């Protein structure tokens, strides 16, 4: 077996409270179950170990709020995971104490992704976030003190009540902290959720405004020396970062269509054309693994055409050209020609490579939908 996965995702669902806009699999409270959950994760890892390379490129602990996990359980988990060149942990700012930062560092974490979202207290309140702006700053300082040299900040824009000036202020505040990496997401309000219900009219207004918010975000960050390497992700250019490539290696793996193993409730794995999602129910997950069995899963077989389509839709999110080699039939030739004429796509060397132009990247979703055969 040469095609084993080199990327591991571990889901830690625990949160102190649920944020209105969030649609990840989360579990509020249940402090008493952290230890049992970590045990279950390690049992699942043991069951799936044959699908993983011995040495991994990346491990990513996402949530939920991974840093809300009991420190002893978190440490046990991190120490038991296979080693990897990049180990990222997601953290909510209010949970990052100097002690936690040190613990992460000692357990081999190389990168921390902080969910700042905004620096405006009233906007954080709209999002139900627990942290305030000072918490974000304190968290960054604590991580720096623990010698973390790869910190990512998440920002959200299009928050109900957010003005253009608010967005600029958030970007300035974030840049002032000098993060190596930033992820900036447009707020996605799912229809039918409590959040959408509460903010419907304002969200509609934001939809108009966000058209150029996105351009603003890209302009500000690229001016500040960041590389817009994926639709919503930015990292400092190598010359501003001691020559390091600061793109998230774990997420790059998704966008390049690599295989990955996911552990934990709701976690998704994709290995050799098979994709499965673990049950999102904590009780079922724990029960199955306590019995030494795999948790209930939803399995999706990915046909070759589907895999090719996914390669296109993921690959076009990046700022690097997508090679059409091996993607025969995934792209509609007439659409490609039209998009080229419109200046949204460029062909690279030998016409085998595709890249979106800058304008094409702002329209990446629509362009991809049109391009797919």
């Amino acid at each position: 077996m040469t095609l084993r996965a080199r990327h591991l995702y571990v889901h830690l669902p625990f949160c102190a409270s649920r944020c209105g806009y969030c649609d990840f699999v989360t579990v509020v409270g249940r402090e008493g179950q952290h230890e049992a959950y970590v045990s279950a994760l390690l049992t699942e890892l043991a069951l799936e170990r044959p699908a993983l390379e011995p040495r991994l490129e990346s491990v990513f602990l996402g949530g939920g709020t991974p840093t809300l996990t009991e420190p002893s359980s978190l440490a046990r988990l991190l120490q038991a995971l296979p080693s990897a060149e990049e180990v990222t942990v997601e953290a909510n700012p209010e949970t990052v104490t100097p002690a936690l930062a040190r613990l992460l560092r000692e357990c081999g974490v190389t990168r921390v992704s902080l969910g700042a979202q905004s620096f405006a207290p009233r906007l954080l309140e709209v999002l139900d976030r627990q942290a305030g702006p000072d918490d974000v700053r304190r968290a960054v300082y604590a991580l720096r003190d623990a010698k973390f040299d790869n910190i990512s900040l998440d920002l959200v824009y299009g928050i109900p009540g957010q003005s253009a000036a608010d967005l600029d202020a958030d970007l300035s505040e974030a840049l002032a902290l000098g993060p190596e990496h930033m992820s900036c997401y447009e707020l996605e309000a799912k229809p039918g959720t409590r959040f959408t219900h509460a903010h419907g009219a304002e969200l509609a207004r934001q939809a108009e405004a966000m058209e150029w918010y996105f351009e603003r975000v890209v302009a500000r960050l690229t001016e500040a020396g960041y590389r817009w390497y994926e639709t919503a992700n930015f990292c400092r250019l190598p010359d501003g970062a001691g020559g390091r490539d600061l793109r998230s290696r774990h997420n790059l793996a998704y966008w390049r269509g690599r295989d990955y193993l996911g552990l934990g409730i709701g976690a998704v794995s994709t290995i050799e054309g098979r994709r499965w999602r673990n049950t999102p129910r904590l009780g079922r997950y724990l029960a199955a693994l306590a019995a030494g069995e795999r948790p209930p899963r939803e399995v999706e077989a990915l046909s070759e055409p589907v895999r090719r389509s996914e390669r296109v839709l993921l690959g076009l999110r990046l700022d690097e050209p997508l090679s059409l080699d091996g993607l025969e039939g995934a792209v509609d030739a007439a659409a490609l020609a039209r998009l080229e004429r419109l200046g949204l796509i460029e062909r690279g060397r030998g016409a085998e490579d595709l890249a979106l132009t800058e304008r094409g990247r702002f329209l990446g979703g629509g362009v991809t939908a049109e391009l797919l055969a």
Partner: protein
Amino acid sequence: MDQNRIRNFSIIAHIDHGKSTLADRILELTDTVTGREMRAQVLDTMELERERGITIKAQAVRVNWKGHELNLIDTPGHVDFTYEVSRSLQACEGALLVVDAAQGIEAQTVANAYLAIENNLEIIPVVNKIDLPQADAEGTAAEIAELVGDDPGRVLRISAKTGEGVAAVLDAIVERIPAPGGSAAEEAPPRALVFDSSYDQYRGVVAFVRVVDGSFSAREPLRAMAQGTRFESEEVGFFSPTMRAAEALGAGEVGYVITGLKDVSRLRVGDTLTSERRLASEPLPGYKDVKPMVFAGLFPTDSDEYPDLRDALERLKLNDAALFYEPETSQALGFGFRCGFLGLLHMEIVRERLEREFDLDLIVTAPTVAYRVLTKAGEEVEVHNPAEMPREVERVEEPYIKASIIVPKDYVGPVMELNTERRGRFDHMEYLSEERVLLLYELPLGEIVLDYYDQLKSRTRGYASFDYDVVGFREGKLERVDVLIAGEPVDALSLIVHRDGAYARGRALVERLREEIPRQFFDVAVQAAIGSRVIARETIKAKRKDVLAKCYGGDITRKRKLLERQKAGKRRMKQVGSVEVPQEAFLAVLNLEGGKK
């Protein structure tokens, strides 16, 4: 049957005023159908008719009452079928004029009552639904008496639902309606009026006839005089209520003739049948070659369904001589058919039948009317499609209608205003009662086909009732307005409008299109133009952002499906040049004013 013992009658009533229920009661009371055989509303055979409460195809049923043979000739219930109604009425000597005691007279009742009076029919006024709590039997009786010039005391009061008074209706038919005239003499050259026809896939065209002179029997060579169609009668008979073969149909009788013809268009309503052996010298009066007045393009939403649409139209045409269609190719909508209809309701019925009975998904372009055009070259052409209107014309004539509108008196102002906007010419106004007013107007049909009826209803809170009859062609100052999307003319959106309204229409249309057409990857100009002169312009600004915010390992499947749906949505759009136009946009022209509200 002795001609003196025959009575031929029809029932005139507005939709929902109880015609079918009364017909059912008559069938029951005369023991034509009994008990369990009774299917509610026997005469309405088609599913669609039932649901819409209207009758498309006339039929005739024979019943016996106190030693008399009564033929009930069912008339189509709507304006678009005025000609068919008039032929049905011509086959009768009398008519029941049925009015709902709670609703009072409607415009359609007036139009059909006038038609009956013109045909010299004996009218028996009937107030129905007197059992309803809100019924105003006396007020309604007074209204009808006024309309037909009769004594209110002679207006019958009934409830078709409970059966109350229905026997008196049958008695009145025998007493008041005259026996049919015509010559029953053996040697008289036979003549029969075709008042309806239908197509049976096994037996071919079945003609519904009223024998005027002589008699008709099976295995007889016959001729339809106006069209010259010849055939041999395979069978004659009558309905009671199902088909019953008879040896012959004699003078004054109503029944059917099975012709064996394979095409309804060869035997048109209003034609006169005679025998090849004793040819009549003169046909019966009143035959008209009915021409479609309203036209629209019908296109399959999915171009693969074009052959299905063609087959479906062929099949509908078998039973609907008034339906016209010919292939049409639109740059925007692909292959379809330009169809001609008697009127708006006829169009609506055809569209619904295509969608319901044939399971087709259609785009129907804005209806237009038949224009008579004299070109600069001196050539006369009839134009059924705005996109085919020559740019240089000497003269254009458009069809005019006489409209009867009945409204409560408080709404006379708004109706007059609407009619003025639609280039109407006021003709006459009269009070039917203290509350209700009849307005007569002449209007261009082209002003009615788009959204007149909706406007009339909305400006009168639904109280207005409306009916019309085409009265002829008149010259009009008409202009062809074209729509250009990103510089490309869109044939399916061309309009013909009066010069005075061209600017406003063009403006409204481009505004509407700007709303209907989603933003694209580039700026899109939407223009309305008369010839090369642009009269209105809007720009659909290019999209600046269209991305899926985040996409990581856990949501690839969902994002892929999202894009697949987006892609499928694009496939349903029509490509105009490089612009994707949703099908709804082609309907924008249908309700311009509706959209502004």
